[in-house]
């Protein structure tokens, strides 16, 4: 029996759904540089948390928040000192209609929409940030009550993309590729309007391949991976320094 390819190690990575596109690209780059086969499993952060807590055999967890990795750490499921923020999310007020958004904040306050889509603040970090933005803009309660909630940020995006909601507070990573707005109109929410959407990564004790996990986490901070993050609209290091003046070419 030939053993040529059997030597390749396997790495199981649990990925929060909002990061699925970027994670696939990063995994592909990683596989080219290391002799490791990466298996990605996508689900909501809450579900992955519950699965890991009950023994799911993942090596690495890329969460959509910083809370679940911290909890896993206190449950003794995390390799010491492995936790770090691999990406910071950004919000954008978005409409599928090219000419809908002229003055985002004013339109939100005036309630110029039938429905405003956002993620559920109770379960999704992007939803919590969206709620903080509505508060910061002092959007009146009766206007805010016309919001519809997605279970996660992908669903909020679907509500807007299908035209069922005229406006939505969605993730910048969903509507921008390569720094360009793909469709519709948008107002970039200044990241200072809400607490930072920090997405943390951890190495898990459940896994069977700690060494490959370490190499993968290191790769997440490497230049090629950071370029993928920037390409998908996650907040870059420079942007975090530059703050509030934001640029976004449509």
């Amino acid at each position, binding site marked *: 029996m030939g053993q040529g390819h059997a030597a390749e190690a396997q790495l199981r990575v649990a990925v929060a759904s909002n990061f699925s596109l970027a994670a696939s690209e990063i995994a592909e780059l990683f596989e080219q540089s290391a002799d490791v086969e990466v298996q990605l499993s996508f689900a909501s952060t809450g*579900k992955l948390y519950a699965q890991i807590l009950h023994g799911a055999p993942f090596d690495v967890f890329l969460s959509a928040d910083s809370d679940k990795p911290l909890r896993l750490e206190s449950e003794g499921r995390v390799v010491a000192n492995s936790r770090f923020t691999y990406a910071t999310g950004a919000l954008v007020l978005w409409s599928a209609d090219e000419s809908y958004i002229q003055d985002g904040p004013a339109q939100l306050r005036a309630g110029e929409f039938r429905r405003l*889509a956002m993620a*559920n603040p109770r379960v999704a970090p992007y939803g919590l940030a969206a709620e903080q933005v509505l508060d910061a803009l002092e959007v009146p309660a009766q206007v805010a009550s016309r919001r*519809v*909630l997605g279970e996660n940020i992908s669903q909020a995006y*679907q509500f807007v993309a299908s035209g*069922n909601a005229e406006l939505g507070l969605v993730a910048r990573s969903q509507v921008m590729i390569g720094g360009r707005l793909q469709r519709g109109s948008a107002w970039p929410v200044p990241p200072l309007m809400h607490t930072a959407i920090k997405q943390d990564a951890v190495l898990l004790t459940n896994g069977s391949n700690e060494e490959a996990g370490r190499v993968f986490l290191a790769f997440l901070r490497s230049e090629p991976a950071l370029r993928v993050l920037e390409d998908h609209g996650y907040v870059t290091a420079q942007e975090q320094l530059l703050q509030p003046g934001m640029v976004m070419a449509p």
Partner: protein
Amino acid sequence: MMLSAEDFGALWLTLRLATTVTLVLLLLGTPIALWLARTRSAWREPVAAIVALPLVLPPTVLGFYLLIAMGPEGPVGALTEALGLGLLPFTFWGLVVASSLYSMPFVVQPIYNAIAAMGERPLEVAATLRASPWDAFFTVVLPMARPGFITAAVLGFAHTVGEFGVVLMIGGNIPDETRVASVQMYDHVEALAYSQAHGLAAVMLAFSFIVLFSLLRFQRSGGPLAARHVD
């Protein structure tokens, strides 16, 4: 295991939705089942297949297509807007339409089986006795196929209570409008509020058991619609 006001709101909404959908499906499903059981048309098989189709798609995928179809650019959305009804997603009646579609096979199939098992003979006899079709339906079909109707109601109701994927996709999680118990429970789990999830799950299971048990019990003891079998 205290239930919050929101939990009770979600339970009450679920009860209203399941009852409405069951009634709608008994009204819609009965003529379809009758037609399927008696027709010799070439359309019989295609229609039967279409009724069963919602079983094939994963609920969230079906919900995704309904979201598009009922949206402003979809055919259903264009129709409802033209009729001045607005858009169906994120409304109670949107959930009724979607759940009816999704639970249709569970109601049509048992009624169809019961009517098919009855055969042509009883209706032919009713006709020779000059019973009108309505008369024949209420005095012959309904009593003879009663177990089928009760099974249909039980399955339609239970399936709507447990419905999750479709509601998730088109509901938008609005309190007292589209946030049903299954979605509320899912949110509890996602928010790691496990004890609240357990509480709501226990109440929903207990309630559903009582409803289903009573219906089935009613079928055995013979209620007002009891069949007068003369085998």
